[in-house]
């Protein structure tokens, strides 16, 4: 492509760049900002839960004269926390940032197949983010019907919900462009010799993720269009006949079904769960393999599991809907598929665990985060099983137990993996290493606080505390005897201390860009192709044509001189 050559203006190089690495960094910075923003929303909510109806310190002036978090604002913060963390934080960081930067590098490609679409993908994401942020300032505030936007509540909600839907359309467009790009890149641009079973597991995880994004998001877009029609054109896709709101029968044609939304929403949102976790598993696989100095145990089984996970994730969605009265036949089907889908996750996790056996482990900061991921993800996964079975789910549905379960997957699970990725790949992006001491403080502090937040929630949930209410409502009275209400304060304090432990990370990240220890192109002595490029990789990535000679993780090969054999190295030497 002619336009990628030669001198480029500042705008073309750093703002409207079509280089996958710059776009990856743009995604990364924006997503980290949104992660922080979503976290701040939750810290405000935790004040209300720990100290109900007392003025919020520091930012209380934003919330009105008395500085108290009002119920309607609480609902907005809750809905936007979920939306921002999932759609603007974690997915853009794991797919948009890490995927964009490292998939082309790991397959030895000069860039993505469609660099301009790649740029468009980022800017659609950016626009979606702006719309979501702007929605806080419209009358009635941001969307307040939960991140799931269930109708009829969402249809009759304030204008923030319309903004939410418009924002989602931008985000879905962004992910569509990204997904097409990832799949074609991985299929078409693998360098010579890089056969499917030689791909790093990270690339496999991104491939499956891209298929999920490609095929699961459009039904939500369809549902979003219908909800927009309901809100703006007065249709009744999701409004049943004779709906009564505040004692008044709503004047609509009716005949719609709120359940239709739930089906379409969860048809996206269950695969979305695997969109959140698969790239994280990919990062953990890379970090583990590098730091155990031996091949991953069961690489093929992991690949097949990831692909199977992808297929299965399309037929488990209604396990989110056991309480809708959909009948035992349907429940039976979805319980069965849900139990089946837990198998590949267990296989992958077991492979990680067995990989450690007999390894000479290097306890670097990225490795600590990757090791932290394993038990945390295991805990999240196992506690999910009761939720997949209708009889247990009926009790636990919509309680803090559910919050604890999926946060163990995505907070100390996925986010730890993302931190591992930042520490692991930082030397490739900048040519410098991040500070190890600060990294270890970051890890241990976060590890303790994460458990301080989510472990007590299991108990709260089993005591029946509702996950959505500003004041716990009647569920607080029920939970009184169980003696779990005091832990609200513990959870909140853990959340705020967790924030403090992110300060060394942010300091470390910014400081190391210019002040970190300078390292060579392959500081971790890793085998995959991204380490064959200079740090940072120039435009076009590699200085000379590559050929791949061996599988991804050839560590400690018997008889070899060094304990690692890079994929592109022709002969032992």
């Amino acid at each position, binding site marked *: *492509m002619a336009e*990628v*050559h030669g001198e480029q203006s500042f705008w073309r190089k750093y703002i409207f760049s079509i280089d996958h690495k710059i776009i990856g960094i743009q995604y990364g910075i924006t997503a980290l900002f949104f992660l922080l923003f979503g976290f701040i929303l939750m810290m405000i909510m935790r004040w209300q839960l720990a100290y109900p109806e007392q003025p919020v310190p520091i930012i209380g002036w934003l919330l009105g004269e008395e500085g108290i978090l009002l119920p309607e604002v609480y609902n907005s913060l809750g809905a936007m926390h979920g939306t921002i963390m999932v759609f603007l934080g974690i997915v853009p960081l794991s797919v948009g940032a890490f995927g964009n930067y490292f998939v082309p590098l790991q397959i030895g*490609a*000069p*860039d993505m*197949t*469609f*660099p301009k679409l790649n740029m468009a993908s980022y800017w659609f994401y950016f626009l979606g983010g702006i719309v979501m942020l702007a929605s806080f300032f419209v009358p009635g505030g941001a969307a307040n019907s939960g991140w799931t936007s269930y109708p009829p509540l969402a249809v009759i909600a304030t204008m923030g919900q319309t903004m939410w839907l418009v924002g989602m359309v931008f985000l879905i467009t962004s992910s*569509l462009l990204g*997904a*097409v*790009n990832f*799949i*074609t890149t991985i*299929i*078409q*641009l693998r360098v010579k010799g890089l056969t499917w079973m030689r791909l790093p597991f990270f690339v496999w995880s991104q491939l499956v993720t891209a298929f999920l994004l*490609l*095929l*699961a*998001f*459009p*039904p*939500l*877009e*369809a*549902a979003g*269009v*219908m909800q927009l*029609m309901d809100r703006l*054109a*007065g*249709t*009744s*896709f999701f409004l049943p006949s004779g709906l009564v709101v505040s004692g008044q029968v709503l004047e*609509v*044609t009716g*005949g*719609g*079904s709120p359940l*239709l939304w739930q*089906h*379409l929403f969860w*048809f996206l949102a269950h695969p979305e769960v695997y969109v959140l976790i698969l790239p994280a598993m990919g990062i953990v696989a890379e970090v583990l393999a590098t730091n155990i100095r031996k091949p991953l145990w069961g690489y093929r089984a992991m690949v097949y599991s990831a692909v199977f996970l992808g297929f299965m994730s399309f037929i488990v969605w209604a396990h989110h809907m056991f309480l809708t009265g959909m009948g035992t036949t349907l429940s039976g089907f979805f319980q069965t598929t849900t139990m089946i889908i837990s198998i590949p996750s267990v296989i992958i996790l077991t492979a990680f665990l067995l990989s450690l056996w007999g390894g000479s482990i290097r306890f670097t900061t990225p490795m600590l985060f990757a090791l932290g991921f394993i038990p945390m993800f295991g805990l999240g996964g196992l506690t999910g099983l009761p939720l997949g079975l209708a009889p247990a789910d009926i009790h636990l549905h919509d309680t803090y137990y559910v919050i604890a379960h999926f946060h163990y997957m995505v907070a100390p699970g996925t986010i730890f993996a993302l931190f591992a990725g930042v520490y692991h790949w930082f030397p490739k992006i900048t040519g410098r290493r991040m500070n190890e001491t600060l990294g270890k403080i970051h890890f241990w502090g976060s590890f303790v606080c994460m458990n301080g937040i989510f472990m007590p929630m299991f108990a709260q949930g089993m005591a029946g505390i509702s996950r959505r209410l500003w004041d716990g409502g009647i569920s607080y009275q029920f939970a009184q005897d169980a003696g779990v209400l005091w832990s609200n304060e513990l959870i909140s304090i853990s959340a705020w201390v967790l924030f403090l432990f992110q300060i060394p990370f942010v300091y470390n990240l910014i400081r190391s860009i210019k002040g970190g220890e300078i390292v060579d192109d392959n500081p971790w002595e890793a085998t995959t192709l991204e380490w064959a490029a200079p740090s940072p990789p120039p*435009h*076009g*990535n*590699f*200085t*000379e*044509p590559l050929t791949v000679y061996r599988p991804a993780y050839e560590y400690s090969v018997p008889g070899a001189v060094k304990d690692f054999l890079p994929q592109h190295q022709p002969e032992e030497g």
Partner: protein
Amino acid sequence: METIPYTVTPREDTGLINAKLGIWLFLASEVMLFGGLFSAYIFLRLGAVSWPEGSSILNVPIGTFNTLVLIGSSVTMVLSWAALAEKRFDRFRLYLGLTMLLSLLFLVVKGFEYSEKFSHHLYPASSSFMAIYFTLTGLHALHIIGGLVVNGYLWGPGSKMWASDPERFTNRVEIAGLYWHFVDLVWIFLFPVLYLL
């Protein structure tokens, strides 16, 4: 190592150029989008107390006419690509121009149908049937407009590529054609579902 490979010549083991794989993936995603709306149609219809017969509300002859217009545009689209394969640029322009005229005709007829409904006070809010009718056909019309923009570009400013890189330009027309046939195909599903069933 700066240029992206397989933009013009297919990769050996996959037999594909990048853009062709890309458009098929995009169309798969589109299938899921319209699939979501079609399943909403089925869901609502199965749950409805009564559902009107499409032909009692919609004008079947006009719908049939529009179906033929769209099928015709698909044929001219293929002919325009075939003309490029025979290096007949003038014929390409003629056939692609015809495709665009036919798609414009489709939109005009659709607009006429819409305004007739509005004049009978039939709006999306009137019933579940009208809601799904306007949503499905409206989204389809947006896809027609999208196709018009792409084809307009290839007919006008984009056709400069014929002089510099004819093979790549032919590929572009083929890929725009794949999209266009998909839009046509969606209508071929929409027409019986909404007008006849």
